[in-house]
């Protein structure tokens, strides 16, 4: 019986040493989760406010919670958002903030990671456009579309070595989870969900870019006669 317990002790010691080495060799890259924070979401993850497009002084801010694999998000991004960007964001009337809210689609989170890893290099909005424009292609893939995302990243001009390292290490998984949790806390149940100056927009209001324009006009006083 005694050799058996020695064998158990040996297994435990070897495993302990391996885990200790693993924690020392890579623990510096990802901060230990704060004691009061949920698992694997750091304080920095929770503090990230999302990627922003538009003027800091715009009177109206829209926060969009979206999923790159959600068809409605894709339709909105490809059909309505270009007009909103041109007529409202680029003219300084509206500021747009994108928050990840990955749903249950197979590639929601890996697509969100691709967006964040491009964003690390200042190319979030270019990657957002590319992901939504190509959603029909990669969204139907039965295998992990990481290589397709890499091609998109190459196409928008990110440094691929940096991008690959970011994707391999899942560097922004915690940030995405934090964004998702914030959405849940704000009552988001589907995507896209919009908050205009902090108030959730009724789904009937985003049927067209004109609806957003009318909303901005009403909030800035332009719609009053």
């Amino acid at each position, binding site marked *: 019986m005694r050799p058996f317990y020695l064998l158990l002790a040996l*297994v435990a010691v070897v495993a302990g040493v391996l885990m200790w080495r693993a*924690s020392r060799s890579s623990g510096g890259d990802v901060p230990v989760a704060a004691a009061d924070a*949920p*698992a*694997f979401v750091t304080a920095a993850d929770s503090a990230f406010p999302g990627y922003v497009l538009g003027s800091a002084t715009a009177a109206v801010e829209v926060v969009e919670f979206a999923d790159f694999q959600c068809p409605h998000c894709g339709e909105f991004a490809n059909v309505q958002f270009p007009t909103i960007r041109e007529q409202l964001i680029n003219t300084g009337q509206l500021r747009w903030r994108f928050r990840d809210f990955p749903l249950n689609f*197979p590639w929601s989170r*890996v697509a969100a990671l691709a967006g964040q890893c491009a964003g690390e290099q200042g190319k979030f909005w270019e990657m957002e456009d590319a992901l939504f424009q190509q959603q029909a292609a990669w969204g139907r893939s039965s295998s992990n579309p990481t290589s397709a995302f890499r091609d998109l990243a190459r196409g928008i001009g990110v440094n691929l070595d940096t991008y690959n390292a970011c994707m391999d290490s899942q560097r922004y*998984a915690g940030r995405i989870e934090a964004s998702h949790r914030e959405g849940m806390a704000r009552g988001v149940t589907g995507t896209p969900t919009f908050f205009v100056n902090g108030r959730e927009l009724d789904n009937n209001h985003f049927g067209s870019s004109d609806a957003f324009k009318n909303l901005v006009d009403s909030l800035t006083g332009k719609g009053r006669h």
Partner: protein
Amino acid sequence: MRRRQAIALLALVGFCIALYLWFYKIGIIGKLQCGSGSCEYVQTSRYGALFGVPVAFYGVVGYAVMFAVAIAGLQPSQLARRWPTTALALLSAGGLLCTLYLTGIELFVLHAICRWCVGSAVVMTGIAAIALTGAMRR
């Protein structure tokens, strides 16, 4: 006795694997050693947690309980008792069902394989095979 020893040893190995994955999940280990596998993709997916608790933690608890039962069953006063055999058979059957479910999620939903999860699945299958055949023989 040999069966309980084998189960204790396998449960300890499974416990270490689950502990490693749980340590990653709570941030103690920054990056999983996974070769070309998809461990982090699987672990950070929505299936990496159940009721807000990392799946790996359930594994830590499950393997710890199996290990404790096997060790208890190896004590001289308990060697002839049947309860450890029955308890291990029930625990391992539950563990095997969870393993099958999680492996199915990896293969058919995430389309990604976590090598550590495969290791745990092999360990759990081994425990179940030993425990269930032992329960049927006695």
